[in-house]
């Protein structure tokens, strides 16, 4: 009789990498659904394009690297990167935007650094920054929520727009961006930024129809949906609470202080928390384990750093939203953060005492 020899432990909790990735993707679904419902079906087409591109890119490089293709495609990490990038870019951006972005994310940012687990930067965010810098026009053409549209967009219109930049009935994106009363509408963050630079106060800018309640129209619901998905992930112990809590807390505290100091020119904490990609970034992107800090304290520092950078860039920088830049900058700081936040080993004195 032959016996199987194995090293202890012989027991495993059976939670695998591919399951974790899949759970993160599933948790994105409510957000994606809200996004599709409020902003049109463009996001679904982008998702499809992104996932296909990601799979092809991943398989291509794995083949080049003489690695088994199928087991690694099954880890779902490429799909997650594709999903995150697809929901981060404008839903009606031309098809080649997402194709270039996803291919760049998988090939350059992930595989050229050594594949899963070895990339310094968050692939989706690095690709987002590449696209934003290379194609600023296409990357800033966010359509307002469907409710503010002068024309209704069907799913077919969405496909036409993504592939031809014109809806089936011949409207260009610029025309679609125009509201019923002929005003071009951007995202709430964009709008606020432009208005403030024109010398308007916060209250004056708030008259724009893109705002709703304490945040952006439509954006509030998208953020709430991602928040819900994120909370499920924490509940399922797929992600640690530390990074999202630190991101949100630091952004909240900083914008609260700022709003108190300059109520006319700096937006309040709730606006910041529920505008743009805050919840998506805090729960789904900043928590990417590969490029985030790994120690418990380090994750708090990392999250707080992202919150700080977002606050600074949104209010004083050159871009309306800032998660991609903030996360990439924080990625760079990760080795340093990890080095200085090592936990005290059992039976050892604190590092500050020993050194």
């Amino acid at each position: 009789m032959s016996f199987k020899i194995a090293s202890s432990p012989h027991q495993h909790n059976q939670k695998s990498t591919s399951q974790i990735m899949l759970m993160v993707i599933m948790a994105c679904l409510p957000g994606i659904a809200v996004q599709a419902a409020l902003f049109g079906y463009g996001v679904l087409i982008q998702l499809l394009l992104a996932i296909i591109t990601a799979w092809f890119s991943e398989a291509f490089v794995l083949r080049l690297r003489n690695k088994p293709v199928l087991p690694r495609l099954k880890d779902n990490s490429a799909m997650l990167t594709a999903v995150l990038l697809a929901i981060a870019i404008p839903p009606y951006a031309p098809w080649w935007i997402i194709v270039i972005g996803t291919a760049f994310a998988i090939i350059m940012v992930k595989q050229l650094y050594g594949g899963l687990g070895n990339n310094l930067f968050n692939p989706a965010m690095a690709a987002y920054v590449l696209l934003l810098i290379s194609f600023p026009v296409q990357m800033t053409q966010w359509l307002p929520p469907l409710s503010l549209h002068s024309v209704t967009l069907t799913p077919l219109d969405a496909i036409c727009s993504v592939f031809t930049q014109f809806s089936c009935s011949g409207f260009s994106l610029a025309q679609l961006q125009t509201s019923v009363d002929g005003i071009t509408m951007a995202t709430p963050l964009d709008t606020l930024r432009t208005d403030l630079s024109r010398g308007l106060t916060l209250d004056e800018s708030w008259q724009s129809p893109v705002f709703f309640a304490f945040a952006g129209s439509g954006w509030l619901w998208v953020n709430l949906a991602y928040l819900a998905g994120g909370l499920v992930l924490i509940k399922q112990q797929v992600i640690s609470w530390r990074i999202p809590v630190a991101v949100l807390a630091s952004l909240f505290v900083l914008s609260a202080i700022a709003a108190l100091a300059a109520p006319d020119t700096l937006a309040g904490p709730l606006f910041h928390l529920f505008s743009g990609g805050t919840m998506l970034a805090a729960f789904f992107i900043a928590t990417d384990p590969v490029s985030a800090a790994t120690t418990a304290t380090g994750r708090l520092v990392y999250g707080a750093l992202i919150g700080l950078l977002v606050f600074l860039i949104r209010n004083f920088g050159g871009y309306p939203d800032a998660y991609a830049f903030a996360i990439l900058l924080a990625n760079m700081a990760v080795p340093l953060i990890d080095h200085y936040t090592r936990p005290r080993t059992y039976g050892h004195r604190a590092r500050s005492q020993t050194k």
Partner: protein
Amino acid sequence: MPSLFKQIQAGVLWDFHGGIHPPTRKQLSNQKPIAVMPLPDRLYIPLRQHIGVAGQLLVRAGERVLKGQQLTSADNSMVVPVHAPTSGTVVQIAPHTGAHPSALPELTLILAPDGLDQWREREPLNFASCDKAQLLTRIQNSGIAGMGGAGFPTHLKSGASQPIDYLIINAVECEPYITADDLLMQEAATTIVKGIDILCHLLNPKAVLIGIEDDKAIACAAMMAACSQRENYYVRAVPVKYPSGGEKQLIQLLTNKEVPNGRRPLDIGIVMHNVGTAFAIAKAVLDDHPLISRVVTVTGNTLNQPQNVIALLGTPVSSLLQLCGFQPEPMQRVIMGGPMMGFTLSDLNVPVVKTTNCILAPTAEELPAATVEMDCIRCSACADACPASLLPQQLLWYSKAKDSDKLNEYNLADCIECGACAYVCPSEIPLVQYYRVAKADIREQQREAVKAEQAKARFEARNARLEHEKQERLARNQQLAATRQQQQLASGANNTVAEALARIKAKQAQAAVADNSDTSSAQLHAEREQKKQQAREYQQQKALAETAAPEVEKTTPETQAEPADARKAAIAAAIARAKNKQQQTSATDNSTAELDPRKAAIAAAIARAKAKQQNSVTAERTVTQEAPVSPSTEVSSQNTEPDPRKAAIAAAIARVKARKQADDDTL
């Protein structure tokens, strides 16, 4: 803030970092009473079943032994003997697959039971009237080593001289599947408590803390009942979490103390014993029943009757499995120990030893074999699970890179190999295996470093020794030279010197006569000559000073006094010395080997001196004009052209003749 002791008394429990909650699956085996294993056909008793060294064999093959008879001697404190688990005949003493992950063969006594189960004579002790040394000897001679898994000699842990605050009895049994301690407590709580009493007698602790996981309600109740008459015995139900039964983790759980890095629990006033060990101590002291059997959990879904069994040490695993209705699968795994820290067996003839608490034969379904290892995604679930607060993902990285400096910096040595990190790893990386390899590498490196250090020390010692010997030799030679000198002085060396001086004076007189007959122009020349002589003489002196410095000193003032013939004096002195030395060397024959080259030198010097003497005798008149041949001819030619040249030629001829003669002489 109440004192720590007050808090402990009040039942406060603390927590340790990390930990996991794997399915415990203890119901498989804890529903039935402990079964007694029938005698197997053969017992395989490894001579070493603890951490330490094996004792000397006391029996030979073919000998009949009685139950409980000591098979190896306990001649020093690191030895824990083994005993015959039953009466029978020693069949063979040979290597046999050991109960160790390596499955390396180790020296094993193979016993054929005779079925009589006949005891040796026993002498129970009343521990209260025994002194500590007697009890410790009994514990050692009964072969008791830690039964929780490590197998550390119990008498060493119990003989501490330091004051002990807490005696902790580890009955946590946190590994899944294992219920041996649970059942033992359920069935023998009073004996266990007697064992604890003996330990208290030895260690005199402030309090006894008995840690039991709170899923063992019956055992917990049994222990509480057994302890009810004792003061300061506290039974503590700790929450189920793996690895709360780790020594360091349980200490933290029960006392909120940490064992400092590189120290032992003893250093913070804590001693921990396994509950099975306490039972074994009671049996050994009160019944004189040495450690020859133990409770083993035989469990897993491939068994029809998973249960706890009292097995004699040395019982092969195959017999145990057979007893419990083993239905092996293809590529069956049989694990000795629990699913978290146990090791797989490749041979079912491996015997039960003192540290064997569980034999686990799971189906592939209940404990799926590890799948393909994937890349680390740095999720740090491992760091969250690590009870030692290490950073396993960093350790993995540095283990793969074989960076032992970094591994030390990240405290790899503090890893207790509990397996919590590998349990939670989503990429199914066998982290513990990486750490074991890295630890072995580091141990090897350290061994190499120690070896290199020793070699260096040896080399340096050798150099020092050689240098020392050299110095000694020099000192001896100098001493010999000094004694030689003294001998010289004593044996009338003065006479020869005096004679030499007389000769010199005579020659001086002659020279003076010669000088007078010379022309006045030759006077100048002679003076110059004198100076040169002096210079040469000085050089000669210097050369001589090395071998016989004091003598030269003695002679120099005289030569200075009579500068014209200083050379002669020096020659005379040299001859005298040489003769003396010759005498001495012949006297000190034992050192001939060393002095041989010196002798030759002396002989040569004598020869030279003789030649020169002859030279000076035959060409006495030209002696003073000898030198100027080469360097001073130019100067002298200005003053006295024809005469000196002639003289020089004559002198040269004379010299050549003298040399020839000298050569003939020496030849």
